[in-house]
């Protein structure tokens, strides 16, 4: 099987400081990988390098494109990479307002990616938006409301609908449940799990919340000071951590 994403020796430096370095892994279709680590461990830097939001200083990121097979996205021309960003890739930001157009209605937010890839039938776009609002459990009557009138959890779900409407194959998520209260988090996690399973999505989820990765991620990568210190099956890394830092991380979680 060809990996959907094949990351080879990616590094990013901020001047003399290491953002992340020596990162290599393969992500296969349908796999969900979590990246955990404390603030400043380089997990968000890595995610942004992979998604093309930050230029990496070294390495290769091969994505298995629909037409041409594996291509190094770091060497792609910007128009091609941005096209990927609108079609096969999705990026869910921690703060919904970074990923939404707050001045545009919920329907317009969901429809934007469709229009960006050439949809020109209003009725179809709206029907599609309505369908997706339903899938993320937003009442269809809210379709013409702006996200400013939505709760935090609804905004996050709207952001997910907006991202998934074009049927991406790879979703990058940066702390998707951060800043939400626990009951809303649970609902969102359940939703994400269902979508990942039903749509066969691959995902890379950056979070510092070990409970989130236990429920969502098949695999885990633990980062510290820009380096990957441990990786493996999620429950194995959490239940039988091998590296000192992972042991510390796991034992630091408050038991409820």
């Amino acid at each position: 099987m060809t990996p959907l994403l094949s990351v080879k020796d990616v590094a990013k430096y901020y001047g003399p400081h290491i953002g992340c370095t020596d990162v290599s892994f393969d992500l296969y279709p349908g796999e969900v990988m979590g990246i955990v680590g404390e603030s400043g461990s380089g997990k968000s830097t890595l995610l942004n390098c992979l998604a093309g939001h930050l230029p990496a200083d070294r390495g290769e990121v091969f994505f298995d494109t629909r037409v041409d097979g594996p291509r190094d996205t770091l060497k792609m021309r910007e128009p091609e990479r941005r096209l990927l960003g609108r079609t096969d890739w999705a990026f869910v930001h921690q703060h919904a307002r970074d990923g939404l157009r707050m001045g545009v209605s919920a329907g317009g937010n969901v429809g934007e990616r469709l229009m960006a890839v050439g949809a020109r039938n209003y009725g179809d776009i709206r029907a599609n938006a309505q369908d997706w609002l339903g899938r993320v459990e937003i009442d269809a009557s809210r379709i013409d409301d702006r996200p400013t009138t939505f709760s935090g959890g609804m905004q996050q779900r709207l952001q997910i609908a907006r991202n998934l409407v074009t049927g991406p194959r790879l979703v990058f998520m940066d702390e998707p449940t951060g800043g939400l209260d626990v009951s809303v988090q649970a609902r969102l996690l359940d939703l994400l799990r269902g979508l990942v399973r039903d749509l066969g999505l691959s995902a890379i989820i950056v979070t510092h919340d070990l409970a989130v990765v236990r429920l969502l991620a098949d695999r885990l990568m633990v980062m510290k000071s820009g380096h990957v210190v441990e990786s493996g099956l999620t429950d194995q890394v959490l239940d039988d951590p091998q590296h000192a830092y992972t042991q510390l991380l796991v034992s630091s979680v408050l038991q409820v």
Partner: protein
Amino acid sequence: MTDYNFAYLDEQTKRMIRRAILKGLAIPGYQVPFASREMPMPYGWGTGGVQVSAATLTPDDTFKVIDQGADDTTNAVSIRQFFEKTADVETTTETSEATVIQTRHRIPEEPLSEDQILVYQVPIPEPLRFLEPRETETRKMHALEEYGLMHVKLYEDISRHGHIATAYAYPVKVEGRYVMDPSPIPKFDNPKMEMAAIQLFGAGREQRIYALPPYTKVVSLDFEDHPFDPSKAPHPCGLCGAEHSYLDEVITDDQGGRMFVCSDTDYCEKRRAAGHVGTLTQEAAA
């Protein structure tokens, strides 16, 4: 002649503006940055159009200025006088007589010919501005032809009003490439933009010039199931009876009385001179 250099601006400035105009003509719809000068009038009064006109005029030109279709409003009169004074060119109110026409918010009703130039005053040249405030991002969107956002605006219109409610500054796609703001002309005028004359757009405050060479393909954006409709008020002109001209609504008293008259004053006057009469003129005569 006065002590001004011809058409107010110095020769080097006019050369710089002409280079921008030529570049704009070479890449129809693309916004060319230029070093906009201070003009002896406030921003918003047509400083961009005036600079383009100044760089375009020759001593042999005949110049016409319209503001919302009228030759006799303050803005039109002052700009016409400005060039009478600084360039000593002939001026006219007759569309067919003019070689250079500077306009604010209208295209003349009478079709223009290949030996004419239409200069638009543009307040905000960036059609994506209100959806994406970052200039760095909008320039990238133009460069990469990422225009989905433009349709989001039209989508929002339909979802809110049931139809595309944008009635002026209606976005167009030029030669299948650049999305362009046609300046705040009514959408009624959009189809006229595929014309024989050269069209130049100047935005003084925003320091941008863009252009349409003759016969450039200009398509108003729309949806398959909500096609572009260049509608106007469903009345004939009250003065000249014209059925297919763009109309201004004029409130005549405080009892709700109103009338619709051609916004293009030259067009209306010519028709009346030719004997056409509207309902209002008939009433007045009776």
